């Protein structure tokens, strides 16, 4: 076991996937970076805006995406397979879908999940439905990587967590890794899956270090993980919230309360069996999620557990989500908007006294 950041685990996995399968391509905005800015070759004024995929052009800059996840791919595999696009999410996500339907395995990066608003038709009507509408004639080995999460004052249009919204759409698989090993392992499984998979990577976790196995093994989609055992409360936490839940759990242990933490890892299809099994043991459910306060992932889990595990519940399930407002910009407002360790502590204690 070695320590790796979530970003580096993804970067290593992207290199591995491109190395082992020539049909894997990577598409997105600024994923190479600096396209067309090479001053060593004077721009042709006639074709300046249509210079094309200049595989032969030397790389003067390699940004590797705004978070550096794709760094080094273009140098290694060339610009024909690592494609910087114009800012045209509808066109390049659609291109990724069409490419997946015709023999390539595209990994498309949408810089922020907020930007999916721009290309939602291609995601919910095209990607999600294509395999179904073709009666399984077409498979879509397509992965859309995107970021989620608040906490860095990026404002309301670069901070959302839209996994619940995406998961409500049949045909889309949705994953939210909380650590390096899961990020790498889920990416491998996602690309092997014949359905489109959307991976939401928390911006705040990219530099988070965690233990990984050397070969970064695949993590099957649709399987959650119990990351801490306990019998007081079942705490279902997603993405960055897993770490807040762990912080709270450590403090609760000192007070003699052992919570069980489940990281679903895959939002859809959800490993509801794992959650139900835990609730059968604890009788209490708390969902901590950065997604929607209304009709989001937390509500979906509570609904499923209430319907399928009602007899095991000792009290009403609870949830901690942000307020039902857009993400605020001011740091102090953003901090109270986000569920935090203190909220989890308080809620768990309240549940234990109930």
């Amino acid at each position, binding site marked *: 076991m070695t320590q790796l950041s979530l970003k580096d685990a993804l970067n290593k996995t992207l290199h591995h996937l491109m190395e082992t399968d020539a049909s894997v391509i990577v598409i997105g905005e600024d994923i190479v970076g600096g396209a067309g800015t090479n001053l060593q070759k004077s721009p042709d004024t006639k074709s300046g*805006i*249509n210079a*094309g995929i200049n595989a032969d052009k030397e790389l003067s800059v390699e940004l590797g995406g705004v978070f550096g996840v794709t760094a080094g791919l273009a140098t290694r595999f060339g610009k024909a397979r690592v494609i910087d696009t114009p800012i*045209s999410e509808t066109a390049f996500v659609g291109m990724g879908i069409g490419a997946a339907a015709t023999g390539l395995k595209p990994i498309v990066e949408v810089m922020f999940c907020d930007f999916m608003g721009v290309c939602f038709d291609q995601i919910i009507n095209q990607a999600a*439905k294509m395999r179904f509408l*073709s009666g399984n*004639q077409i498979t879509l080995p397509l992965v859309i990587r995107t970021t989620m999460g608040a906490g860095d004052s990026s404002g309301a249009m670069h901070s959302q967590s839209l996994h619940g919204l995406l998961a409500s759409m*049949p045909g889309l698989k949705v994953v939210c890794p909380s650590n390096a090993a899961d990020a790498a392992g889920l990416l491998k499984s996602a690309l*092997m899956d014949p359905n489109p998979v959307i991976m939401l990577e928390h911006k705040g976790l990219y530099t988070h270090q965690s233990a990984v196995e050397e070969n970064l093994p695949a993590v099957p989609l649709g399987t959650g993980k119990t990351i801490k055992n306990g019998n007081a409360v079942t705490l279902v936490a997603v993405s960055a919230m897993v770490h807040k839940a762990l912080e709270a759990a450590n403090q609760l242990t000192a007070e003699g309360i052992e919570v069980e933490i489940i990281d679903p890892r895959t939002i859809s299809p959800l490993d509801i069996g794992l959650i139900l099994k835990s609730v059968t043991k604890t009788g209490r459910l708390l969902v901590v999620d950065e997604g929607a306060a209304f009709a989001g992932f937390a509500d979906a889990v509570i609904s499923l557990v209430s319907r399928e595990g009602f007899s095991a519940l000792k009290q009403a399930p609870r949830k901690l989500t942000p307020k039902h407002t857009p993400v605020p910009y001011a740091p102090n407002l953003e901090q109270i908007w986000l569920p935090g360790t203190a909220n989890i502590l308080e809620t768990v204690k309240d549940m234990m006294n109930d």
Partner: protein
Amino acid sequence: MDANQSLIYRIACQIRCFETAIAEAANSGFVPGLVHLCTGAEVLQATLCTALLGHNDYVTGSHRSHGLAIGMGADPYAVAAEIFGKASGLSGGFGGTQHLAAPDCGFLTSNGIVGAQVPLAAGAALSNKILRPGNIGVCFFGDGAANQGAVLETMNLAVALELPLLFILENNGLGQSTSSHYASGGVSFSARAKGFGLRTEIFQEKDIADQMVALPLLIEEVRTSGKPLFLEAFVPRLSGHYHGEEKSFTAGEKDMFDPLTALEGLLERSGLIQDKEGYDFQIEIQDAVARALKSATPETASLTLWEQTWQANS
């Protein structure tokens, strides 16, 4: 006149015959939803499909794409069965008239969202560029779609990334009930395409003979240059937005130009056809549609099975 034009005529007739049979079935209440017929565009579609024969090209189309599916070689029985919502349909009845898919024939998909098929064709063009150089992507879309962001974005993307993609704007002057003159700003659609750096060509409605020669050359140009090209083809919309609509908005003329009749005239004058009635292929189409009508509806368990398949990573 040559054998190629006879083939174009044959395919165009099959498409017309198919659409007529579907219209009759719809009149009798056998089509579950609305159908959008491609009547008037058959010769353009047949010319395209004939020119793509023998290649690994991919075509995407709008909601008005029965003709493209058949022209690309999809089994008319399976196309009709899909339109009727039958188990033996192209997609087992999951897709229907607006979502036809016959990827093995090169007809990737048609679409229920106006213009959404255009970025998909860019993806097919990218696949061909990387995996099967010399093959191309083609997207068919209407003048209504030409105002969609997806289409405009894709024009830019195809130029920026040098994709072997042929844009075919099927300009019939109407998006549902709204005229393109009302809906569209600017000088012309071709001028817009030029603005993106695309080479453009225009086919006037009545120049059938020239188009049959010119379209294969345009396709060849995309193949060899690897670059996108934009074709604006004026075609009449000889049926309503959907078949059976109460108020049918057409271009408003009683005796509209029919490219298929014009092609027939051309071939008759050159002695290539004497008797246009009673062709075997027309009887075959009618028979396929009739058989599709009688075929079985999908098993109700098929949806549950689909759900399980989706979850099971297979």
